[in-house]
C-alpha cells in the first residue's frame, strides 16, 4: 500500500480514539488530585462589594477557597498582539476578579475540594455582593456618549487601525460608474469544540517544578505566556502538556486564567488541582469569534471592473483582550480584502471596542472569513445591480496566472495561484449551466431555488517572524522539529505543531516515510509536551503543514545530508557522488549501495565510521521560519431551496474546488474541508452568540439554545482540489484547515438572497429572518 506523499492513508491515531483509549485532559487522574470549580459572575458589569467564602470553606470536602485578594501579586493574563505595536488600550485581566466584574462568566472565586461535586456544592455557598453597573453589549452602545466605562479608560475603545491608501481609494470612487454599498453584521460565534476546556496544575516540591496539563492548541505558547508573564516560572521549571485535545477551532489558542489558577493553586494546596468546564461554562468563558459590524462599498466600472473597495468595521473585543484578539480583525482581515481580484485601491479602517461580553479571539478562519464574506457578498450584489453573471464579474477581475507573485494594495503578496480553472471546474461540478432548469423545477414544487458562489484567498502558514514583529505580534511564528532516527532505523518525530483532530501523526509520518524511504509504520509523531518537544508555536491558522511540516522537511534534509556522509565512508566514495533514493544511498552510476537502516545502525554503532570528522548519532533538529504566508484559494458553490411558507432553507448541493498546493493526504484534506464548511454553514444559518442588550446575559448559553449543525442540517459535499505549488516552502504546501469556514458563509447567503430575490439577509439566516425578508420583498 502506498503510504507516501499524496496517498490517502488511514490514520495512525484512529485506533486509540475508536477504542476509547484516547487520553484527553479530563481522562487524566493525577494521584491525590483535588477538584476546582470557579464561581463566575452572574452579572455583566458590577463592582464587587464583598465575596464571602466563609460558608463555602465549611462545606464537606472543601480544601480551599480563593478570591482575587489571594492572587494579589500574580500578574494578569497578557495579550500577545498590538496592531503596529500600538497605541492600543490594554487594560489588565486579573486571574480572579479584583474589585470588579466585566462580563457574565468573569471569575470571582475558586473552590477546591476533594471531589468535583463537593466543589460545585461549595461554589453555590460563596456569597458575592455585587454593586451592579449598567452593561454595554453592542459596540454602538459601548461607544455612545456617556456609556459606562468598562475599564479605567477614557472610553471603551481599544484601538483604531487602518490599512491601504485612503487617497487613492477616494479617487477610485470619484471616477466610478457604479458603487455598491452594503451594511452587514458578521455574527458572533462560539467555537464549541466538543471537548470542553480542562486543566490540571501540579507542583513537585522535590524538583521545585510545575506541570500544567491543558486543552491547548499550543502548549509552548502557554508555557511562555504563563511562565514569563503571569506566574514568573522559568521554562525549565514549567512543563505544559496538551495531550489528546478534542477539537480547538481557535478557542484553545489563548492563554486562559483558569490555567493560571490551577497551576498556582496546585502549589498552594500541595496537591494536583483539576478543573473541567461544563458546557454552559464553555459558552460563558471560551473565547468567541467574529462579531463585526461593517460598512463596505465597492466602486466599479459599468462593465463590472473593480476600481476601489472601502471598508469600515467595528470589531468587538469583549470585556478583556484575549491573547491574539487584536490580530484577528486587523492583519488577518484587512490584508485579505483584495480577495481573488485586482482591485487597485483598497482602504479599510477598523475600530476595536470593549463591551461587557466574553473575550473574542480566533475562531476557525479568524479574520479571513470576515474578509471573504464582505468581498463575496458585495461582489455578488454588484453583479446583480449591473446585470452581469456572477461568475463573469469575478472572472473579469481575477488576478491572472502570470501576475504571480502578485502584490496586493493591502501589503500582502500572493505567492502563487491560478484562479480561473478553479471557478471553471467548480461551475462544472455544480452544473451551473443547468441551474435555470433546476430552479424552474423547484418552483413547480413551490420552492425557491438559489445558487451562490464564493471565491476566496486566505493567508495561511503564519508567519515570517520579522513581518510578525513589524505588524505587532509579540512572538516569533516559526516552527520547530526534531527527527530522531533510532539505531534500528525507526524514527520518532517531535513537532511543535499540535494535533487536535488534524491527523498530524499520519500526515507528518507520510512525509518522513516518503523522504527517508522507510515503512510508514516505522515512524511515530510526538507532540503536545514541552518536556519532549524542543520548541513550538502550535497549531492555528492552517499553519501546521506549511510551517511545522516544513520544519520536519528541513530536519529530514539534515538527516539525509549526514546519512550521505556516513554512506560515503562505508562505500568508500566521495560524498558528492552519493545519491539517496527510496531508502538507499547509492554511488552514482554504480550498483554499490547501503540502505538507510544500515546507515542508522552505523551512526549508533560507529565501528566503521568517520569519527574524526563526524559525530555519532542520527538525530537532527530544525527551526523553520517561513519566507512568506501561503495563499490557498478556492471556489465554493452552494445551492439551496427555500420554503416560502416557513422561510426554511435546505442546502441541496455543495460543490467546491480548492487549491491547497501539494496535498499530502487527500482523505484528511477532504475531511478538513468538510468540517470547515460545516462551521461556515453553522455561522450562516444557525449559530449566534446572543447577549441581552439590557442585562448583558448570554441568551444562547447552552447547546439547547445555540444551534451547531446536526447531520441533517448538512448535505454531502463534492470536493476537488487543483494544485499550484507554494514556491517558498520545501513541501509546496499551502494549508487547508480553514478554507470551508472561509468560503461557506458567503456562498450560502449569496444562494439564499438569490433564491428569495433580496439584496441581503444578515447571518444567521434563520427561517424567521428569511421569511421576513421574503415578505418585505413581496410587499415592494
Amino acid at each position, binding site marked *: 500500500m502506498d503510504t507516501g506523499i499524496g496517498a490517502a492513508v*488511514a*490514520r495512525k*491515531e*484512529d*485506533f*486509540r*480514539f*475508536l*477504542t*476509547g*483509549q*484516547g487520553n*484527553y485532559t*479530563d*481522562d487524566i*487522574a493525577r494521584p491525590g488530585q483535588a477538584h476546582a470549580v470557579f464561581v463566575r459572575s452572574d452579572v455583566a458589569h458590577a463592582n464587587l462589594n464583598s465575596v464571602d467564602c466563609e460558608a463555602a470553606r465549611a462545606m464537606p470536602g472543601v480544601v480551599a477557597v480563593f478570591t482575587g485578594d489571594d492572587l494579589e501579586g500574580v500578574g494578569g493574563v497578557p495579550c500577545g498582539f498590538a496592531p503596529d505595536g500600538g497605541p492600543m488600550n490594554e487594560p489588565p485581566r486579573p486571574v480572579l476578579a479584583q474589585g470588579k466584574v466585566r462580563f457574565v462568566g468573569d471569575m470571582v472565586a475558586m473552590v477546591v475540594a476533594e471531589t468535583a*461535586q463537593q466543589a460545585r456544592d461549595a461554589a453555590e455557598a460563596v456569597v458575592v455582593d455585587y454593586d451592579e453597573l449598567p452593561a454595554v453589549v453592542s459596540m454602538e452602545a459601548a461607544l455612545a456618549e456617556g456609556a459606562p466605562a468598562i475599564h479605567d479608560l477614557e472610553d471603551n475603545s481599544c484601538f483604531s487601525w487602518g490599512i491601504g491608501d485612503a487617497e487613492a481609494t477616494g479617487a477610485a470612487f470619484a471616477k466610478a460608474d457604479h458603487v455598491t454599498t452594503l451594511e452587514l453584521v458578521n455574527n458572533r460565534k462560539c467555537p*464549541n*469544540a*466538543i*471537548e*470542553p476546556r480542562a486543566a490540571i496544575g501540579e507542583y513537585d516540591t522535590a524538583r521545585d517544578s510545575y506541570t500544567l496539563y491543558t486543552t491547548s492548541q499550543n502548549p509552548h505558547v502557554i508555557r511562555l505566556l504563563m511562565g514569563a508573564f503571569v506566574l514568573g516560572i522559568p521554562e525549565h521549571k514549567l512543563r505544559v502538556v496538551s495531550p*489528546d*485535545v*478534542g*477539537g480547538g*477551532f481557535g478557542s484553545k489558542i489563548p492563554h486562559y486564567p483558569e490555567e493560571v489558577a490551577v497551576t498556582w493553586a496546585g502549589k498552594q494546596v500541595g496537591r494536583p488541582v483539576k478543573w*473541567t468546564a*461544563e*458546557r*454552559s461554562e464553555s459558552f460563558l468563558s471560551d473565547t468567541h469569534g467574529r462579531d463585526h459590524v461593517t460598512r463596505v462599498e465597492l466602486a466599479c466600472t459599468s462593465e463590472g471592473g473593480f476600481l476601489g473597495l472601502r471598508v469600515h468595521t467595528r470589531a468587538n473585543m469583549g470585556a478583556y483582550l484575549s491573547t491574539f484578539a487584536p490580530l484577528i480583525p486587523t492583519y488577518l482581515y484587512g490584508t485579505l480584502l483584495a480577495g481573488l481580484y485586482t482591485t487597485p485601491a483598497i482602504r479599510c479602517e477598523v475600530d476595536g471596542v470593549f463591551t461587557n461580553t466574553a473575550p473574542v479571539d480566533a475562531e476557525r478562519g479568524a479574520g479571513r472569513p470576515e474578509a471573504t464574506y464582505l468581498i463575496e457578498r458585495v461582489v455578488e450584489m454588484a453583479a446583480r445591480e449591473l446585470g452581469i453573471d456572477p461568475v463573469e464579474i469575478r472572472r473579469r477581475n481575477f488576478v491572472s496566472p502570470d501576475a504571480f507573485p502578485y502584490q496586493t494594495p493591502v501589503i500582502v503578496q500572493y505567492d502563487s495561484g491560478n484562479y480561473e480553472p478553479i471557478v471553471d471546474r467548480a461551475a462544472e461540478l455544480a452544473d451551473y449551466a443547468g441551474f435555470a432548469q433546476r430552479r424552474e423545477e423547484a418552483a413547480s414544487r413551490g420552492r425557491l431555488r438559489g445558487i451562490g458562489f464564493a471565491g476566496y484567498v486566505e493567508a495561511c502558514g503564519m508567519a515570517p517572524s520579522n513581518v510578525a514583529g513589524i505588524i505587532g505580534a509579540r512572538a516569533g511564528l516559526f516552527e520547530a522539529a526534531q527527527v530522531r532516527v533510532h539505531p534500528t532505523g525507526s524514527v520518532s518525530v517531535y513537532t511543535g505543531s499540535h494535533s*487536535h*483532530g*488534524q*491527523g498530524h501523526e499520519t500526515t507528518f509520518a507520510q512525509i518522513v516515510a516518503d523522504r527517508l524511504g522507510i515503512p510508514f509504520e516505522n515512524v511515530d509523531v510526538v507532540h503536545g509536551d514541552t518536556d519532549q518537544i524542543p520548541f513550538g508555536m502550535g497549531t492555528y491558522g492552517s499553519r501546521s503543514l506549511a510551517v511545522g511540516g516544513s520544519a520536519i522537511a528541513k530536519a529530514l534534509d539534515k538527516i539525509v545530508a549526514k546519512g550521505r556522509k556516513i554512506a560515503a565512508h562505508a562505500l568508500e566514495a566521495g560524498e558528492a557522488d552519493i545519491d539517496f533514493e527510496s531508502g538507499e544511498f547509492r554511488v552514482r552510476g554504480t550498483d554499490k549501495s547501503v540502505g538507510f537502516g544500515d546507515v542508522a545502525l552505523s551512526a549508533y554503532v560507529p565501528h566503521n565510521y568517520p569519527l574524526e570528522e563526524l559525530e555519532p548519532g542520527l538525530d537532527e533538529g530544525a527551526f523553520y521560519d517561513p519566507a512568506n504566508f501561503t495563499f490557498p484559494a478556492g471556489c465554493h458553490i452552494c445551492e439551496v431551496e427555500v420554503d416560502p411558507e416557513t422561510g426554511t432553507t435546505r442546502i441541496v448541493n455543495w460543490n467546491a474546488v480548492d487549491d491547497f498546493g501539494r496535498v499530502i493526504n487527500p*482523505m*484528511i484534506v*477532504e*475531511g478538513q474541508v*468538510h*468540517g*470547515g*464548511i*460545516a*462551521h461556515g454553514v453553522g455561522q450562516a444559518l444557525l449559530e449566534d452568540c446572543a447577549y441581552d442588550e439590557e442585562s448583558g446575559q448570554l441568551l444562547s448559553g*447552552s*447547546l*439547547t439554545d445555540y444551534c*451547531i*449543525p*446536526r*447531520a*441533517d442540517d*448538512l448535505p*454531502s*459535499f463534492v470536493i476537488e482540489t487543483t494544485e499550484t505549488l507554494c514556491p517558498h516552502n520545501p513541501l509546496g504546501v499551502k494549508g487547508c484547515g480553514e478554507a*470551508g469556514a472561509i468560503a461557506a458563509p458567503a456562498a450560502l447567503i449569496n444562494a439564499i438572497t438569490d433564491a428569495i430575490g433580496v439584496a441581503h439577509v444578515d447571518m444567521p439566516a434563520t427561517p424567521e429572518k428569511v421569511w421576513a425578508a421574503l415578505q418585505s420583498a413581496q410587499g415592494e
Partner: protein
Amino acid sequence: MTLTVNMTLNGESVSAQVEGRTLLVQLIRDHFRLTGTHVGCDTSQCGACVVDMNGRSVKSCTVLAAQADGAQVNTIESLAENGELHPMQQAFKDNHGLQCGFCTPGMVMSALDLVANNPDPSEAEIRDWLEGNLCRCTGYHNIVKAIAAGAQAMRS
C-alpha cells in the same frame, strides 16, 4: 446517602457505592475509570456519552447510576476484540469518520443501535438518527459514509 449499584459492565459483574445524584457517566468514568465515554455538554445534546444499556443506546449523562442497577451496560471499550476493531469501528477508520476523536465513542455506540434496528439505513435515515450526536470536526459527511459502510460490513 449512598446506594449500591450492581451491574454488568462490558461483560463483568461490578458493584459500586454511589450518591443518589451520581450520573451513570460519572460512575463509568470516575469510578470504573473507563474514560472512552466522554462528556461534551450538560444538556443531553452532544451524545459523546452514549453507551449501550440493556440493548439500547442511552446518553449516560442523563441516566442516574442508580437506574443502571441490574443493567447490562456496554461502553466503547467493549467493542474491539484482541486488538481487532469491530466492523463499525473499522468503517469509521476506513472512511475517516473521525478527526479529534472526542465525539467518536458516542457516534459509534449510537450507530450500532441504529444498525441493530435498521440493518441497511439510507443516508437520510442515518442523518436523521444522528440528531442526538454532535460532531464539530467532520461536517458529518464521512461519519454518514462510515455508518453506511459499517452497516454493510455487519450485514455480510
